């Protein structure tokens, strides 16, 4: 039986949703124009005024915002409310340049919490659940987001944060955690550790909400089988609020976007042209309901497809596919486009663990790509020839998927670096020599 945290919103008619978005957009454009000189200048340069925006049909007239704008306007340049109204700051884990900092009023935090509560309920959560949050806490939005959602729902919240696997497993068994929230790679690692310790029968998990990094359907099946749970995807980004901008329902076929707070568009990343529903392109968000840090037409760089087809769960909110790639994470190796997700698919299809790392290098003007794969007990054999034969098969499969030769290197278990529970998937050494 479907269950909703905000039934009147999540199952509203399309007309009703459109009306909320029209009114919200008009209001937001006015607030931003009046209070954010940075964006007002952009609007003036584009020759558009608040009066020109009557509703969604006019959205395309507004200029885009990108991460570069956020860096440029750092730290206060995009705020639509005075600091005194703000109660929270979160930040992205940007490794280069200035970080992106987002501000929240209490209204903004409540809105975010509500989005996360909807995600937990969609994953089968109730106030009787024990929600085990193993996302990092702090500036990173993962921990605070799911923590807030769990509170809002009234579930018992375990603010574990990431790391200390033994303690994670002990609390999970002793306190009967039922819903696990973390990155998919940390979930896979926890599953592996639980099974290694022979504790699978001692855990009571029924569902997991895993986001903040790309993962494939194969990885979903692996985690579901290893833990005996249903694994749900969740999507969000700090700039727009955090996790919970979109979440998966019982259908597990895409994530419903909380359209009463966010407007989603898909554009051609090259031309900026809005694409019709069903076409693949870059996802763009307008967070019109936010007070402190509303963003108009923010480009996410995530490539996905939107669908308004009826969903069996009864929700009427538009669905987005899992990000199918990044408009900016594509690797070009020997002139060939390589997506890490392609490599992941090959590995999982050949029985290797999802723990891998791609090293791209350039020696004497020639590109090379190496895929490091962690050895697993299942793949190991006392016979060298068996292991090398499997390696050769993998190299051949990679070649046919990518169109180029990729060297495979077997490494010891758990030797691939993880930070905040996120595996570092790609190391492009060629960047070291630029600028």
């Amino acid at each position, binding site marked *: 039986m479907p269950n909703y945290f905000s039934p009147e919103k999540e199952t509203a008619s399309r007309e009703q949703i459109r009306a909320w978005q029209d009114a919200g957009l008009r209001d937001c454009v006015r607030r931003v124009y009046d209070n954010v000189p940075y964006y007002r200048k952009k609007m003036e340069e584009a020759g558009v005024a608040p009066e020109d925006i009557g509703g969604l049909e006019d959205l395309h007239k507004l200029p885009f915002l990108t991460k570069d704008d956020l860096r440029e306007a750092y730290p206060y340049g995009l705020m639509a409310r005075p600091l005194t109204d703000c109660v929270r700051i979160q930040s992205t884990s940007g490794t280069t340049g200035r970080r992106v900092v987002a501000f929240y009023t209490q209204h903004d935090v409540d809105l975010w919490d509500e989005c996360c509560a909807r995600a937990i309920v969609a994953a089968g959560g109730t106030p009787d659940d024990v929600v085990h949050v193993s996302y990092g806490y702090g500036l990173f939005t993962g921990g605070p987001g799911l923590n807030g959602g769990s509170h809002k729902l009234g579930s018992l919240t375990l603010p574990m944060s990431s790391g200390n696997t033994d303690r994670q497993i002990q609390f999970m068994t002793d306190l009967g955690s039922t819903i696990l929230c973390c990155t998919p790679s940390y979930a896979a690692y926890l599953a592996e550790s639980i099974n290694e310790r022979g504790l699978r029968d001692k855990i009571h998990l029924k569902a997991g909400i895993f986001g903040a990094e790309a993962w494939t359907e194969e990885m979903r099946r692996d985690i579901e089988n290893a833990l005996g749970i249903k694994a749900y995807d969740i999507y969000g980004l700090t700039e727009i609020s955090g996790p919970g901008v979109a979440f998966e329902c019982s259908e597990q076929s895409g994530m419903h976007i909380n359209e009463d707070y966010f407007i989603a568009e898909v554009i051609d990343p090259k031309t900026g042209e809005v694409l019709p529903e069903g076409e693949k392109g870059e996802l763009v968000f307008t967070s019109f309901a936010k007070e402190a840090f509303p963003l108009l037409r923010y480009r996410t760089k995530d490539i996905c497809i939107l669908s308004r087809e009826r969903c069996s769960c009864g929700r009427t909110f538009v669905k987005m596919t899992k990000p199918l790639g990044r408009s900016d994470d594509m690797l070009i190796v020997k002139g060939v486009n390589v997506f890490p997700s392609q490599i992941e698919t090959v590995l999982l299809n050949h029985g290797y663990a999802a723990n891998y790392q791609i090293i791209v290098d350039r020696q004497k003007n020639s590109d090379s790509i190496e895929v490091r794969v962690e*050895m697993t*007990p299942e793949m*190991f*054999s*006392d016979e*060298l020839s068996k292991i090398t034969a499997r390696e050769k098969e993998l190299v051949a499969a990679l070649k046919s998927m990518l169109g180029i030769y990729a060297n*495979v290197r*077997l490494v*010891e278990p758990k*030797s691939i670096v993880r930070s905040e529970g996120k595996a570092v998937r790609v190391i492009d050494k060629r960047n070291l020599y630029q600028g």
Partner: protein
Amino acid sequence: MIAHTKGGNTMEYTQQISVFLENRPGTLAELTDVLWKNNIDMRAMCVADAMDFGIARIIVDDVYETMTVLKDAGYVCQITKVLTVEMADEPGGLSKILALLGSAGINLEYTYAFLSRKKDTAYLVLKVAEPEKAEAVLRAEHIRLIGQETLQGIFGD
């Protein structure tokens, strides 16, 4: 523990531990260090190398304890059934055993030798495709096989 009974004879196997090693400087030293820190004496060791990885094959007294130590240290490892034969440490000792297996049509995957404190005696570890058949052939020639249980004895500890 590994004494199987077949045809009235007690079959004597050694449980070799095979450990995955990545190809990077110092991996073997790390492995021996883990064993040393846990007071595990290796009776024999041999390393097989492929291009990008290796397999360390080790013989110890307490297989269960060693497997636990290695798994805790994060190694991928498994137990492999091998035969350990005692032979005279004199010219022709090895050839005789290999000839016996060869004439019986038994495929030898790999072999390595080790010594004990017993004078003039060497030990040969054999990994064969058909261990039961190999054992029968060697027994018929009155060649002594060292089972896991008797390993400790030959070192006189």
